[in-house]
């Protein structure tokens, strides 16, 4: 018997209906975009070829989706088995995050009908950093769905198949840890390629390292965020003790990030820019405030154990690191004469993608053995009923 079990309960709730509506709006907009072109829906231009879709759906979306990567790193590489209950939900969120990030790239590229060139050696440009990112993300999406196969297998396959899958799975888990390490740093590496178009406060050769560290921290934060939310919404037993330990990782990753970020700025003699860059100074300080707050909040073991502190820290961390990506690629990105602000259409498509993730997550946890069933049989029995009625 698996330690995981489906949550059960009705799929038609207020949340799923709202999410479904938002997905339907997105579908309409995307259809319009595919027929009438990017200009009809987005504010992207030759000066700003990357808009909200890339910066949120890919840069932030895949970093949010680093939960699977971060947990796999802890559970399988550092062999900390006690975190096992958190792996599957994290992997599920990662799978959706990455898959939808990949899908939104198809929305974003102007000539989407040429997308197959990416995987065709004669057409692909092997010297492009974007190719590395694209192939890496594609491979990782595939690997994650393979990593997730035990979940499908438990529901539909027999014991023999499950055994076979588990035998080879370690290869994919290993690759699944390697790939995000590559592309999460490359996502930052593309910013280095932008050169002087990026404001000096954000432009540094250390961007790949900062992206990797912050992506890992985001991965742990999203695990905390999602576990807290699921616990709270579905009235499940708390995984607070695990989340407290994970929050320690967030704390030290953030300390490393902040030290590197500020030391780099200081060494390059750019500290003055922190105060003198006007609007960008505000953004920089806001970003660092959001990333600095969790360090203060999580510093003590007693405080770290509180679910409220864990949640606030995770949210601040996610917001700060998200803002770091938005600032780097949009706000601090300056093409003289060009300007950009996402159009309503772009915003609604991104909202639709988030809604789709939420919707699919709910469907999966209710129908597939994703969440840990071990803790309390009593709670577990009550859960389906409560989920249907208390779902917001």
């Amino acid at each position, binding site marked *: 018997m698996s330690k995981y079990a489906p949550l059960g309960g009705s799929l038609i709730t207020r949340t799923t209906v709202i999410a479904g509506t938002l997905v339907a709006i997105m579908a309409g907009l995307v259809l319009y975009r595919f027929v009438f072109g990017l200009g009809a829906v987005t*504010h992207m*231009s*030759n*000066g*700003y070829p990357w808009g909200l879709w890339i910066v949120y759906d890919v840069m932030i979306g895949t970093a949010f989706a680093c939960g699977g990567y971060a947990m796999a790193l802890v559970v399988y590489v550092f062999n900390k088995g006690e975190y096992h209950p958190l792996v599957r939900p994290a992997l599920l969120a990662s799978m959706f995050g990455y898959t939808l990030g990949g899908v939104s790239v198809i929305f974003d590229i102007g000539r989407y009908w040429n997308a197959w060139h990416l995987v065709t050696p004669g057409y692909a440009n092997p010297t492009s950093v974007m190719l590395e990112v694209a192939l890496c993300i594609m491979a990782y999406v595939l690997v994650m769905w393979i990593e997730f196969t035990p979940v499908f297998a438990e529901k539909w396959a027999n014991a023999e198949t499950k055994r076979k899958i588990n035998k080879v799975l370690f290869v994919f888990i290993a690759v699944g840890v390697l790939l995000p390490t590559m592309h999460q740093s490359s996502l930052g590496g593309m910013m280095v390629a932008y050169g002087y178009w990026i404001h000096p406060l954000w432009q540094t050769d250390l961007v790949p390292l900062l992206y990797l560290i912050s992506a890992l921290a985001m991965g742990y934060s999203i695990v905390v965020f999602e576990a*807290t*939310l699921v616990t*709270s919404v579905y009235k499940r*037993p*708390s995984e*607070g*003790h695990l989340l*407290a330990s994970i929050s320690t990782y967030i704390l030290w990753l953030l300390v490393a990030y902040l030290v590197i970020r500020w030391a780099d700025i200081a060494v390059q003699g750019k500290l003055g820019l922190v105060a003198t860059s006007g609007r960008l100074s505000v953004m920089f300080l806001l970003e660092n405030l959001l990333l600095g707050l969790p360090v203060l909040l999580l510093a003590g073991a007693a405080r770290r*154990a*509180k*679910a*409220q502190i864990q*949640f*606030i820290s995770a*949210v601040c961390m996610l917001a700060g690191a998200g803002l770091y990506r938005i600032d780097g690629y949009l706000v601090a990105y300056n093409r*003289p*004469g*060009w*300007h*950009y*602000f*996402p*159009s*309503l259409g*772009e*915003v*609604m498509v991104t*909202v639709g993608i988030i809604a789709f993730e939420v919707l699919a997550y709910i469907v999966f946890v209710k129908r597939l053995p994703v969440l840990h069933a071990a803790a309390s049989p009593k709670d577990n029995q009550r859960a389906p009923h409560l989920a249907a009625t208390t779902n917001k």
Partner: protein
Amino acid sequence: MNDDILNAIEKKLGVSRRSFLQLCAAMAATMGLPKGAEAAIAQAIASPQRPPVIWLHFQECTGCTETLLRAEHPTLDKLILDIISLDYHETLFAAAGHQIEAARKASMTANKGKYLLVVEGATPMKDGGIYCKIGGQTAHDLLVECAADAAAIVAIGSCAAWGGMPSTSPNPTGSTGVPVLIKDKPVVTIPGCPPNPYNFLSTVVHFLTFKKLPDLDDKGRPKFAYGRLVHENCERRAHFDAGRFAQEFGDEGHRKGYCLYKLGCKGPETYANCPSILFGDVGSGSWPVGTGHPCIGCTEQGVGFQKPIHALAEVKSVVPPASYPRIVEEQGEGMTFGSAAALAGIAGLAAGAGATIARNLGKGGRDDHSAGKE
């Protein structure tokens, strides 16, 4: 062309054959003649038969002759005086008085219908033309007399071309140009104050080589020299197009070499090749606009000596727009009400939801904590 002829030229002109052939090629290029024309020019110049030239001076300042004297390739003494037979020229002749008038008449009789008449200066017509007399004859009488048997007539300088400076209002002597007075013969005008010597020399050499005049525009000007506006080849044109103008003499724009249009440059309405061939053979910038002064339109009737120097030119080719494009044009689309409202709404919802969840967690936080410990 055989070596004998070239040797003969070397002896006759005192120039090396290399310099001579370079000169012929330069002439052909100035006139925009096809490949091979330089050989024909060399042949024509090398011919021992020198065409006679009679050069009249009327109301003028001798600037045209002076500018011709400053031509370097060829120099006037080395080429014009040897290639053509300058039978009468009031500035340059050695003889004087009745002697030279007799020489003119002799040449006209001997070369009837073959000589080239060059006129420098305007012809006064008021009060019977008494305001300019040479050897007891009025300018008009002289002109009519000499033009009668000329093969072709070249009116050099703006004064001869249409009256030029002497005809400036109120024009007290009733000055006018050759084309107004001589209607039965082709008159080439080489306007300019002074005209570029090479435009004159090239026209003469064209006549010698091909026994006909070059293509002329409606004002009798050779098209090879006056076919384009000064504005078209001006080295400051890019500043005009970009809207960078000197506003007054000595200001920052003027010092930086901006367009002189707003200082009254007549380049946009004046046809001449000044910016292309320059003056004085001293290299770039050696023309009025190059030195920082607006073109006064001296080659253009109705512009030069008529419009004030500071007056704005009437732009013939492209009219400057009311406003100019910025160096960096704003592009892309900014914030709209809808997108800003949507983002603000989402941010508000997220913040609200986050705060609510955090508050609820706070309520159950201790329980969670204790549960975790158990």
